């Protein structure tokens, strides 16, 4: 049996993002990509499950950046057994979460995994719709904000974070789709030598896909955030600054 992990690349915000002259896209020449942080946790959780049960881990992604190989080889180096890359005219486009789920669903059904793990959200999916949409398309049970998993016969026990520190333990029949908030351990380090070895020795399986025609909202304009002008910079000596902070806190009844 296998555990499928969905990896998605998102723009790295360490560098300042620039908008393309078209006004409807980022300047792709200056963007660098990283794996969505929550997806890194989904992979780590899957690898922890593999260590406990011996399941194979398959990483799956749609190559919209042309640079997904790096993420997939890194996952193989970390301990995944297979990597599947969906390629085609999707490269260079931003897919809506719904379109992404539509492309992934048939491929994942074919893998017939015991579990599908993905990040609970992503910078371009702040609502965390990928896991529920996939669950709906596959007609498999779904839950999100997962912070721990354990596989048992025919089911998976998950710990889900609610609010105010309250945790919910529940059981889902497998196969199921999980949106991972945090793995039980920090995503592991993989030495660069191991990644390079994976690049030499492993193969990434490719599946041809076409950009789906969808009735999604059309992007008309991207804008950089505009300063709201509410920030007040405190200057002067440290004691002046402290006095001013206390004054502000007092004025708002916080001190």
């Amino acid at each position: 049996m296998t555990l499928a992990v969905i990896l998605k690349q998102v723009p790295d915000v360490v560098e300042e993002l620039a908008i393309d002259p078209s006004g409807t896209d980022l300047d792709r020449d200056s963007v660098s990509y990283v794996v969505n942080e929550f997806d890194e946790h989904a992979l780590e959780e899957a690898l922890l499950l593999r260590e406990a049960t011996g399941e194979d881990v398959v990483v799956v992604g749609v190559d919209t950046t042309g640079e997904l190989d790096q993420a997939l080889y890194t996952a193989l180096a970390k301990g995944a057994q297979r990597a599947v890359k969906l390629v085609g005219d999707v490269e260079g486009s931003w897919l809506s979460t719904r379109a992404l789920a539509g492309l992934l669903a048939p491929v994942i059904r074919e893998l017939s995994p015991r579990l599908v793990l993905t990040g609970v959200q992503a910078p371009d999916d702040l609502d965390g719709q990928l896991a529920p949409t996939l669950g709906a398309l596959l007609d498999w049970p779904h839950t999100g904000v997962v912070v721990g998993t354990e596989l048992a016969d025919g089911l998976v026990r998950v710990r889900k974070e609610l609010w105010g520190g309250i945790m919910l333990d529940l059981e889902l029949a497998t196969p199921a789709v999980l949106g991972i908030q945090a793995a039980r351990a920090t995503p592991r380090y993989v030495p660069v030598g191991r990644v390079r070895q994976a690049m030499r020795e492993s193969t990434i399986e490719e599946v041809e896909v076409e950009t789906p025609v969808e009735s999604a909202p059309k992007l008309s304009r991207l804008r950089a955030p505009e300063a709201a002008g509410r920030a007040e910079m405190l200057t002067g000596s440290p004691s002046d600054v402290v006095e001013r902070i206390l004054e502000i806190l007092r004025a708002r009844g916080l001190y």
Partner: protein
Amino acid sequence: MDSSLRKVQDVWEQDTAIVEGVDISGPWNRMFGQRVIWNYTPELIDEIASFPGAESFAWCYQCGKCVPVCPVDVVGDYGPRKLYRKAQTGISLLDSPDLWLCTTCMNCLRVCPKQVDMVQIMPAVREQALLSGRPLPAELQEALENTARYGNPLGQPPRKREAWVKDAGVPVPILHQIQRPVEWLWWVECYPSYHPRGIDASIALARIFHALGLDFGILGREEKCAGDSQRLAGERGLFEMLAEENIRTLSKYEFRHIVVTDPHALNAFRKQYPKYGGQYDVWHYTTLLARELPRLHPLLTRQLPYRLTFHDPCYLGRHNGEYDAPRQLIEALPGVEFTEMPRCRQNSYCCGGGGGGMWLDSFAAGRQRRRLSEERVLEAVATGADTLVICCPYEVSRFEDAVKSTGYEGRLRVRDIAELLAEAMGLIGEEPAKA
């Protein structure tokens, strides 16, 4: 098992023993049995020595010369001899916190009669720990991930690597912009490009180079970390990737020599890059400026009323043999008083930043009585100095933090040699150029 033996405090002894007519009954006769040490196996020592580069681990004959000169033992319980002894008693270096405490300062190798070389052993064993998937300290993991992703351990944007240039106040040519050969390629490195106090020293050095009329240029955003400390922390693959990329970048430009700010880069270029096809004539900036002293002297016009002491960087001194150039520069500063610390030159103490220590600060601090940097600051204070002079970019942040944590803020300042020279030349004020 001999039934006449009974166990007392983990040592076997005989209740009654008559040896050649002499009654030696009692606890002290344990010395006539096998010593407990004979029960240990050399398996763990053999395992460590089997890793490529770590062979000399097995040569240790437990003389103990390395322990008193080990800067880590001074503030804790460590030392190469102890690592060997622990391996004998069943504690594997691979799984021990000891693995991450060595700063590869090389003072043990200096005194070791058996050439047990921790500078080779530590990266080799750390590499095995990483390859076998053992967890590594979180702060180190972050620095390695940052280096792999951004080309610097600080996690700063690669494009901002040349941003400090706009504050230099003098032209700092960037090779991808000027497209012409230069005599000196200045390898600025990460901390001098991004860290605020590192930038202060870079600005000072740029002004000195400019005042000397040096034909120099930097790589700017094309430069990536030279990677030596990552290599010593066990990430050889990352180091190789950086070395290959840097060598490829350097091959695009024409220059005659490289001048580095960072002794760790000096070490990488001198000892490692040639293995990957990168052969360069590399100078530390103190060596270059000491050569230029006849031209510098007339420019050093301002009196500096400071009492100085100097910290030898491990990777400039012990690792690359340069002790004199920084001292020649210090002695050329008008008006200063200079006092050596007791531990100087070949026996210099270590700031704790080498060999990955820069990114293991809280890991190490949790296992030591005080930080190595704090130990060194106390030694500097004891000389009566008001200024601790440095010439390695790791040191300024480590020592300035240590000055604060030991309570000497306002009494001891930490300044790069370049800052003092630039001040004596009237190129910067007493305060950092970019406060």
